[in-house]
């Protein structure tokens, strides 16, 4: 799967800067797991962070710094260095190790939706539409959606920035065909009417950059139904 729709550069910059909300960050990270192109772009955005970090001009506080320096020297004694052979990703992800292969959700979603596709608890939301809200307290703006195949969503636009990452299935709208791995990183002024492809349900994960806002992927008329 080679994604054809990518993260907006403005979103990449904010991801690199650590400036996305948790929900947006999780959706962007899900795309990054699947997309080498965006990972390469991200490396560029992180270099900007590196340069900005080294350009900072700290004020001189010799007393405090000397104290902290001593504390660090003491901690070095107690802190063994890791062997270079162990990889950085080698921290055991205990939960993930029990779930393998096709049942494994993208890693970035684990803190919010668990590790397993099979364990997801979909809730009926509207005809042909199931949804899961993130189990975490800040998850108001992070949801997974499952839309039945061949379903047409009402025309809508977006109040704020919205990120939608397609995990399974596909949909078409005026912006093109969106399949697994694709990212719909939409500006607020875009109006669209997604139609899910025939065959399998379209499953995606979506977030808005403002908390307590419901993603526009649904028509606003659905909002009363889901009580948001």
């Amino acid at each position: 799967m080679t994604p054809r729709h990518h993260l907006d550069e403005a979103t990449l910059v904010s991801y690199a800067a650590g400036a996305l909300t948790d929900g947006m960050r999780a959706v962007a990270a899900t795309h990054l797991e699947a997309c080498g192109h965006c990972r390469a772009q991200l490396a560029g955005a992180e270099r900007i962070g590196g340069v900005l970090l080294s350009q900072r001009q700290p004020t001189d506080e010799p007393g405090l710094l000397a104290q902290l320096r001593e504390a660090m020297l003491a901690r070095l004694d107690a802190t063994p260095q890791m062997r270079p052979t162990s990889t950085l990703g080698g921290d055991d992800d205990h939960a993930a190790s029990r779930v393998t292969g096709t049942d494994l959700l993208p890693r970035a979603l684990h803190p919010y939706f668990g590790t397993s596709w099979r364990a997801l608890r979909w809730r009926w939301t509207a005809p042909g539409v199931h949804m899961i809200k993130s189990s975490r307290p800040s998850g108001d703006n992070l949801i997974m959606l499952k839309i039945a195949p061949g379903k047409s969503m009402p025309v809508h636009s977006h109040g704020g920035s919205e990120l939608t990452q397609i995990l399974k299935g596909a949909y078409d709208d005026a912006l093109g065909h969106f399949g697994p791995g694709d990212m719909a990183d939409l500006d607020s002024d875009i109006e669209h009417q997604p139609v899910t492809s025939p065959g399998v349900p379209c499953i995606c994960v979506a977030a808005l950059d403002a908390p307590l806002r419901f993603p526009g992927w649904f028509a606003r008329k659905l909002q009363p139904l889901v009580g948001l």
Partner: protein
Amino acid sequence: MTPDTHRWSLSPFETARAMSTNEPQPKTAEDWAAEMAAVSRCGDRDSFMRIYDHFFPRVRLYLRGQGSPEAVAEELAQEALLRLWQRAGMFDAGRGSLATWLFRIARNLHIDRLRQERYWVALPEGAEPAEDPPDEPYSRAESYADHVDLARRIERLPATQARLIRMSYFEAKSHSEIAAELGMPLGTVKSGLRRAFLKLQVEVCGGAA
């Protein structure tokens, strides 16, 4: 008076003092990579402390900009440098500068801290994907020249774009927050960041020019 003649006019005591300051001259990305190699190869403490002396105050300042209280910024900055010590063997100078690596460590520590404060739950280790460098090889190594070019290019950004970049990196403001604070339409914030990024990318990737 040129800097050289000035230097020779110092008394021997002053000269000795000038030479014993932590940073007699600016180090390049290559110098830092060499220090890291020594830390990784034989746990060289002198090399590590030279890295510490230069970067700790900068990381701490960065974390304060992110909104961390003074004590938290200190603690996280210490933690960031300690991780650098622990994981020195995983640093790959061919994939990016030490400053970029440290930036990522500090940023991720800060994000994890915020999430823990919000939820009062520890996240599973490794839940933060930015913590794991992707397998994707960078298109080419970041050289000292790239670093200098990028720094220069950042300085030359138009004022508004520079402001958007700084509000993003230094204050971790989201697009909506920036829009609200500057009274700008959201679309303008995004297009400004997009243009700034593309300008900075040209410099990094088109270095042959």
